[in-house]
C-alpha cells in the first residue's frame, strides 16, 4: 500500500477492504459547514416562527424555538449520522463518513455515544456573549479531540474511541479505463532486447501511468514517461531505434508492457469480439 492512512478491515468474505481515514482538517471543514448550516437554519426558522407566531401564539412560538434549539444542538449530528449512513450535510460535502471500526454502518447507540462525547472533545469552549443581543456563541477549541486524534493510530477523537467509530473518506471510485494503446502496439522484437524481465511492479506502474495519462498535459506526460523509458531501454539493452524511445517514450513503455504481459499467455484471439472503446489513436502510437 502506498497510502499510510488506511484502515484495513477483513470482511466475512475473507477479503481485506481498505478505507482511507480522514484527518483533522477535513473533519474541521465538515464541522464548520455543519455549524454554519445549523446556525443558519436556527436563525431562519426562528425568524419565521416569531413573525408568524408572535401575534397569535407567542408562548407556543417560544417553546417551539427552544425545542428547535435543542434538536439542533443534540439531535442534528446523531440523527443525520444514524439515518444517513454516517453522514451529516457537512460530511457529505467534504466526502466523509463515520463508520464503525469493523466496517459496519453506524448503529444508533454508536452515533449517540460519539456525538454526546463530543462535549468532552470540544473543551475548552470559548463563550462569546453579545450582551444586548442576548445571543451567545459557543466556540469550541476541540483540544482533547485533537490530542486524541494525534495519539490514536486511527485518527479517532475521544468520542470515536468510546464508540469504536472512525471517519473515512467516501469517494465514488470509477472503473479505470484501460489504455487503448495496447490494442495497436506491436510487442518488442525479442532479438532487440536481452533476457531481463522487468518486475511486475514496474509493469503495473506503466499500466497505471498509461491509464491516467489523460490527466497530464502532453508535454508533461512525455517528460515523465521519458525518464522511465530511458531507464528501461538501458536495462533491456534495447537495440532498436533509440530516437523513437526518446521521441515517443509512452509508445515504448506500452511496447514493453505488451511484450511482457502477453508473452506468457497462449495466443487466444480475445479481440475477436468488437470493442466499443477504440475511438482515437493515442498520440504516441504512431511509433
Amino acid at each position, binding site marked *: 500500500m502506498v497510502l499510510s492512512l488506511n484502515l484495513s478491515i477483513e470482511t466475512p468474505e475473507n477479503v481485506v477492504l481498505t478505507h482511507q481515514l480522514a484527518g483533522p482538517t477535513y473533519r474541521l471543514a465538515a464541522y464548520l459547514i455543519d455549524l454554519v448550516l445549523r446556525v443558519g437554519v436556527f436563525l431562519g426558522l426562528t425568524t419565521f416562527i416569531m413573525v408568524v407566531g408572535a401575534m397569535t401564539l407567542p408562548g407556543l412560538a417560544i417553546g417551539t424555538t427552544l425545542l428547535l434549539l435543542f434538536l439542533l444542538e443534540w439531535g442534528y449530528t446523531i440523527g443525520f449520522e444514524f439515518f444517513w449512513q454516517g453522514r451529516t450535510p457537512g460530511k457529505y460535502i467534504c466526502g466523509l463518513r463515520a463508520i464503525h471500526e469493523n466496517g459496519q454502518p453506524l448503529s444508533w*447507540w454508536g452515533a449517540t455515544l460519539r456525538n454526546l462525547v463530543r462535549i468532552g472533545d470540544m473543551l475548552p469552549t470559548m463563550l462569546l456573549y453579545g450582551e444586548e443581543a442576548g445571543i451567545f456563541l459557543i466556540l469550541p477549541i476541540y483540544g482533547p479531540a485533537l490530542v486524541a486524534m494525534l495519539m490514536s493510530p486511527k485518527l479517532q477523537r475521544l468520542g470515536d474511541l468510546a464508540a469504536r467509530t472512525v471517519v473515512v473518506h467516501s469517494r465514488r471510485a470509477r472503473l479505470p479505463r484501460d489504455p487503448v494503446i495496447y490494442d495497436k502496439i506491436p510487442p518488442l522484437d525479442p532479438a532487440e532486447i536481452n533476457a531481463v524481465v522487468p518486475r511486475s511492479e514496474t509493469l503495473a506502474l506503466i499500466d*497505471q501511468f498509461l491509464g491516467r495519462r489523460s490527466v497530464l498535459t502532453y508535454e508533461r506526460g512525455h517528460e515523465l514517461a521519458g525518464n522511465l523509458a530511458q531507464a528501461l531501454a538501458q536495462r533491456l539493452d534495447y537495440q532498436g531505434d533509440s530516437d523513437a524511445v526518446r521521441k515517443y517514450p509512452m509508445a515504448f513503455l506500452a511496447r514493453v508492457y505488451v511484450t511482457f504481459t502477453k508473452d506468457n499467455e497462449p495466443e487466444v484471439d480475445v479481440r475477436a469480439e468488437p470493442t466499443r472503446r477504440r475511438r482515437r489513436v493515442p498520440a504516441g502510437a504512431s511509433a
Partner: protein
Amino acid sequence: MNKQRFLQKRRQEWKRFEQLLARRGTASGGRPKPAEITEFSRLLREVSNDLATIQAHDWGQGLVEYLNNLAARGHDAFYRASPAGWRPALEFIVAGFPRLFRRNAGYFAVAAALFFVPLAATWIAVQNEPTLALRIVPAEQLDSFDEMYGEASTSDPEHAAGGEGSDDDDVSDHGFGEERAAMAGFYVQHNVGIALQCFARGILLGVGTISTLLYNGIVIGSVAGYVLSLGHSEKFLSFVVSHGSFELTAIAIAGGAGLMLGDAFVHAGQRTRLESLRVRGMEAVQIAGGAAVMLVVAAMIEAFWSPAPIPAVAKYVVGGFLWVLVALYLGLSGVRR
C-alpha cells in the same frame, strides 16, 4: 491470467453489482425481491474474490480502489445496522434501560450521593442562614425566585434561566396555556441539555461529571433553602414535588453514566483502558439515553402539571405517587422471572 481479459470477462458483473447497489441506496428501492438478494449475495462474494485477485496480481491502484469501493458498499448494504423502529425503542424504555440501570446501580449511588448530599447540606445551611445564598447565587437571580414563588407571580422564563442549576424555578398563576408551551420547550432544551452534558463530561476521567453534579446540587439546594426561608414553602414544595421525581433522579442517573465513562479509564480491570472504555461506554450511553427520556417526561410534568392551579394537597399526593412510580420503574421494570 491477463489483466485485459480478466477485465473484459468481469466488467459486466461489476456493472450489474453497481446497479443493484444504486437501487439499494434509494428509498424507492423498496424491499428487495428474494431473487435479487440471492444475486446480490453472489455478486458480493464474486466482487470480493475479484478484489483479492487484483490485489494479488498488482493490477493497478485504480482498479483496486474501484473494486474496494464496490465491495465496501456491498458490505455496507449487506451487513447493515438493525433498522430503527418503534418496537426496539419501546423495548428499550420498558425493559432495556431499567435493566442496564440496575446492573450499574453502584455508579448511580455514587452520583446520587454527589448530587443529593450537597443539595441537602446547602438547603439546610441556607434555610438557617439565608444570607449564605448570596455567596452562591447572584442577588438579582435570588430576587427573581422570590418574585416567582411570592404572591404576585408572573415571570418570564428567560429571567429564571440564569445558571446551569436553576431548573426547578418557575411557576405561574396563569395555569395552562401559552406560557406553558414556552416553558415546555425551555425545560426540554435546558434540563435534557444539562443531563447530557453531565454524562458526556465524564469522558475526562469523571472530573467533569463530578463538578457538574456538585455544582447543580449546591445551586439547587441553596435556591430551595432561600425560597423556603422567605416563607414560600407550600408554593415551592407543591411545585417541585411532582416533576422532581423524574428530574432529580434522572440527573443523578445521567451523572452515574458519566462516572461509568470516567471510571472505565481509572479502573479498567482485566481489560486495557481503551477496551474498558468501549465496553462500558456502550452501556453508559444507553443509560444516559434513558435518563434523557426521563427528563423529557419531567419537562412535560413541570410545564403542564406542576404549575396547575389546584390545591397543594392534590399535588403532594400525585407527586408522592410519581416518586413511587419512578422507584418501581427503575427497580422492577423488565425483571426477568
